[in-house]
């Protein structure tokens, strides 16, 4: 089949699904809507597989499909096409998106079956998939930006899906506006590149990337990539713009799984990986990315420890894991970043869906303090969730282990790395192990704290099948990127498939040398050991000895409160940025518009009025006064004549 046709179908099917479900949203049942929505994504998934197979058949250096539907904007030197670029990176990305997306659609059929607006829901989901595909496949930064904003829009609509709840609508709004801040930075980044390179085509930009590193802070590439990274902090929820993601959990849980864990939030990472030659050329930007990534890891993980909402924990975990991806990007390990993106997509989608299944079983309850002991009610959910848990805490052999460990190693070993980054990463990993174990303990293990009136029940098959698939992927997903030192001891296993696959398009950091295996083993052992300790600690605290944790939190109550209130970052933002802006605006309106500009015009009017009433007072109706004016006029006229 022709590539153009495949790509057309790839795009058309979610778009059609969106339109059909959107227009006929009141006219068919939930199952039909779900079927249409899922089928649309499934078709896209098939197309993605076809494209991937086609790429396989090509020579490694020429693995690319470029489809151009025509020109979008062509003014002067600005030439932007409806062009889509499929190569090793984007083909894998769309496989993840459509694959995980399809599973989540499937899950949604069961999860949303009781909701009134289910057709609307599926139309939004399809709309999201469409935009995500545009984002990933777009061949220029502008097309990428189209998808970038489009997914933000879909996210806005889906977070505020239950809009009758004002808080949920506000969360959607917050997500969109915070994303917009990032988007504004992204726009500026685009402008910088367009003005200095004369193009916005990603491939051309990559080929124009300077080979000499830019050491200044105000170099074009450094500034441009910094602004692009600013965009990524918005979309991928990094410091300082991560605040929207936890609130975004207001949306339906499958949405959180799809958009706010597996796909959309990784767009920033994808973008950086996509533009890796540019980012490599800007060491300062890389440093910023690495530092912000590492700090996000620790900050979000620490907040995650004290959250009681099952989805909030997962949300902070997502922020934290995204931090790892940025850390990887920042130290130049783009392949590893993508690797973690992929494994994270599997296990985090799995855990979100698992939490969805829990919430479904608990009839909407999200507070983990009111759960516990759900293992016996939800056995399958528990089993699959455990796979995700094992993956995320980095149990050797599970997918998360391989990707996270490689990130930690690279952050230590890469020439752009630093031991401090490694330390932060390991602290993050330790905390991750702790709070995820805490989540497991409070939700599935230990004593049941479920309200008597509630009868938790296992979810239907349509919801469990995606869980199984994702669980399987979380377990085996890591084997595409086994680190060298491990593959060496596994006879017959080819070394790091992913790295090999990406080798033609992803540059490595200059100066990267082979590391000392002993060192790598040592660091790996250290991080695994620390994670293990914290896992055991958490298990001890939350299952064996629940009173100890209470005493402990009592003792450090101020700190605990601070952490559970998310370090008051939201309040700080509102107090120091949002509210002052609103107050400023009110004052601007009241003082500049109403009191000043309008007053000025009134003054002008009053001046006219005043002079009018003065002249009017001259017309006092008295004949003699009038005669006097004549006389004065005469005198003045005569004097003027005399003066001459």
């Amino acid at each position, binding site marked *: 089949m022709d590539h153009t046709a495949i790509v057309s179908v790839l795009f058309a099917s979610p778009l059609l699904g969106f339109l059909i479900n959107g227009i006929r949203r009141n006219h068919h049942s939930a199952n039909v809507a779900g079927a249409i929505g899922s089928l649309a994504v499934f078709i896209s998934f098939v197309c993605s597989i076809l494209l991937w197979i086609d790429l396989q058949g090509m020579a490694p250096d020429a693995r690319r499909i470029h489809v151009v539907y025509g*020109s*979008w*904007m*062509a*003014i*002067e030197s*600005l030439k932007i096409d409806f062009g889509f670029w499929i190569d090793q990176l984007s083909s894998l990305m769309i496989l993840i998106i459509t694959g995980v997306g399809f599973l989540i659609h499937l899950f949604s059929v069961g999860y949303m079956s009781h909701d009134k607006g289910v057709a609307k829901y599926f139309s939004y989901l399809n709309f999201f998939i469409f935009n995500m595909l545009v984002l990933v496949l777009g061949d220029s930064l*502008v097309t990428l*930006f*189209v998808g970038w*904003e*489009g997914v933000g*829009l879909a996210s*806005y609509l889906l977070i*505020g899906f239950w*809009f*009758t*709840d*004002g808080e949920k*609508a*506000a969360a*959607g*709004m917050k997500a*969109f*506006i915070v994303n*917009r*801040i990032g*988007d*504004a930075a992204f*726009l*500026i980044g*685009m*402008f*910088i590149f*367009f*003005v200095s390179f004369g193009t916005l085509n990603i491939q051309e930009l990559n080929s124009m990337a300077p080979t000499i590193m830019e050491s200044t802070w105000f170099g074009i590439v450094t500034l441009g990539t910094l602004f692009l990274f600013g965009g990524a902090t918005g979309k991928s929820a990094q410091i300082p713009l991560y605040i929207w993601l936890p609130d975004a959990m207001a949306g339906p849980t499958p949405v959180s799984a799809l958009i706010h864990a597996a796909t959309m939030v990784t767009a920033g990472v994808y973008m950086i990986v996509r533009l890796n030659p540019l980012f490599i050329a800007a060491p300062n930007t890389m440093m910023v990315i690495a530092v912000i990534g590492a700090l996000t890891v620790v900050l979000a993980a620490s907040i995650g420890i004290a959250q009681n909402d099952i989805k909030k924990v997962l949300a902070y975990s997502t922020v934290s894991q995204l931090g790892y991806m940025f850390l990887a990007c920042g130290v130049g390990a783009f392949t590893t970043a993508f690797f973690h993106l992929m494994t994270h997509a599997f296990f985090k989608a799995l855990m979100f869906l698992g939490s969805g299944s829990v919430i479904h079983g608990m009839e909407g309850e999200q507070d983990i303090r009111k759960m516990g002991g759900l293992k016996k009610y939800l056995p399958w959910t528990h089993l699959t969730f455990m796979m995700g848990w094992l993956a995320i805490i980095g149990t050797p052999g599970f997918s998360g282990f391989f990707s996270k460990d490689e990130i930690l190693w690279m952050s230590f070993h890469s020439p752009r790395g630093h031991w401090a980054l490694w330390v932060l990463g390991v602290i993050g990993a330790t905390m991750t192990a702790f709070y995820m174990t805490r989540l497991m303990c409070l939700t599935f293990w230990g004593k049941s704290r479920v309200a008597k009136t509630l009868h938790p029940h296992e979810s239907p098959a349509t919801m469990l099948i995606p869980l199984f698939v994702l669980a399987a992927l979380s377990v085996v997903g890591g084997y595409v990127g086994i680190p060298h030192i491990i593959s060496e001891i596994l006879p017959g296993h080819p070394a790091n498939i992913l790295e090999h696959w990406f080798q033609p398009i992803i540059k490595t950091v200059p100066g990267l040398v082979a590391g000392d295996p002993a060192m790598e083993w040592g660091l790996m052992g250290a991080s695994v050991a620390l994670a293990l300790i914290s896992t055991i600690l958490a298990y001890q605290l939350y299952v064996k000895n629940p009173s100890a944790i209470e005493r402990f939190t009592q003792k450090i109550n101020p700190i605990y409160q601070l952490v559970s209130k998310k370090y008051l970052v939201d309040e700080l933002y509102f107090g120091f940025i949002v509210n002052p*802006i*609103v107050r*400023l*605006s*009110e004052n*601007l*309106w009241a003082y*500049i*518009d109403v009191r000043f*500009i*309008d007053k000025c*015009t009134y003054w002008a*009017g009053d001046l006219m009025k005043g002079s009018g009433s003065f002249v009017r007072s001259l017309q006092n109706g008295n004949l003699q006064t009038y005669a006097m004016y004549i006389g004065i006029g005469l005198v003045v006229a005569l004097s003027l004549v005399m003066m001459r």
Partner: protein
Amino acid sequence: MILSTLIFLPVLFAIVIALWPQKSTIRPIALGFSIAHFIFGLTLFREFDPNIADLQLVEKYMWMERFGIQYFLGIDGISFWLIQLTVFLAPLILLASWKSIDKNIRGFHICFFILQTAMLGTFLAFDAILFYVFWELSLIPMYFMIGIWGGARRIYATLKFFIFTMAGSLLMLVAIIYMMFLTQQAFGTMSSSLLDFYKLSIPFIGHEFFSMQTLLFFAFALAFAVKVPLFPLHTWLPDAHVEAPTPGSVVLAGVMLKMGTYCYLRWVLPLFPEATEYWAWIFIMLGVIGIIYGALVAMVQPDIKKLVAYSSVSHMGYIIVGIFVFNHLSLQGSLYQMLNHGISTGALFILIGMLYERTHSREIKHYGGLASALPIYTIFFFIVTFSSIAVPLTNGFVGEFLILLGTYKAIPMAAIFSVTGVVLGAAYMLWMCKRVFFGEKGPLVADAHHPLVDLNAREIVILVPFVIMIFIMGLFPNVFLKWSEASVDYLIKNKANYELTIKGAK
């Protein structure tokens, strides 16, 4: 004769309506007229040649020999789309006024058609005096529209509107007359033809404010700045919009504001190139301030219509910045943004009008939860909102992107400040949407005695063309940009001594 017909057809319509015997059939008749006018406007697509920058379809007759005042019409790529926008909006506006205008229908339609004539004349006139006549003529029907069919404080609003715009344009009249004397000095005979004005070389001394070109430049620029409206002169706009009836608001936002920005391109830039370049920073600065200020103030408005009015200030700021940055991208972007703003803000005002017809309130705090009461309305409102906040693949994105890109190319700082408008734009629109459409049902929405009725067929028919245009313009900007390309290119290339030739003339 196409242009004359285009301009004066509405006058004919107005006369017919004035004499029409039955009051009940005035609405359909007027609607039919406006559709006919729109279809007639489409003939321009055939007659107009987009590949050349010349002045086309010229009509030139002597009007007052003694002063060289001519009846001189012409069209080029810069005015082409604005004409189309004007005739495109007319039937939709009339349809939107179907229910909302219920007193003195005859008078309203006469006013409306005369307004059409005035606006088209402003866009097409190439003689300074003729232009001035049309420019001022446009005030009068608008004055009546707000003054007769407007809201509670309409007299205040009309006065403010009239005085602001009038004060500005009087300065322009003085400048026009002065320039006519300059033509007499330069060519021996007096002329008010714009093409003759273009040929003048007016002395310019940069650092002196009281040099001739600077003074003339400011006289013109100020008149147009009031109309745009540029930041400190904008306060008439919110009041006029709030008090104006829906059709008045749509015309005001859709077309009349564009008269100001269009005239910058037609009059100020080519006539006073040095002064424009020297003083551009003021306008860019005011434009940027307008973008941010308009957005900030819009954010805290309690009235939906006022919010949209302030958003106009913000959007028009982009256009001004784009014009004064003066490069190809930004100019094309500005032209495009003029159309966008006409479409999206026009649609927003129509939508707000529809809401007002149902609830007779525009206070944001009285609403809430409207999305579940009026689902179809909500869909349309959100599409238009997304166009207004420049989500890609809608028309707004193309315009803002081009302007910002062009601006960054010339003055990076201006672009960086303007970009905050993108964020703030999303903030005020979505915050308003959140308060109006989402959350608990507000007192007006939950009122059981007056259940809200979703859009009827007529209202959907009004909105669908807007939505179609939003997406067509967002997806295929080239189709639109092509028609202004040659003229903009010519304007950029011949910046220092801009002269237009008449098509076919040697």
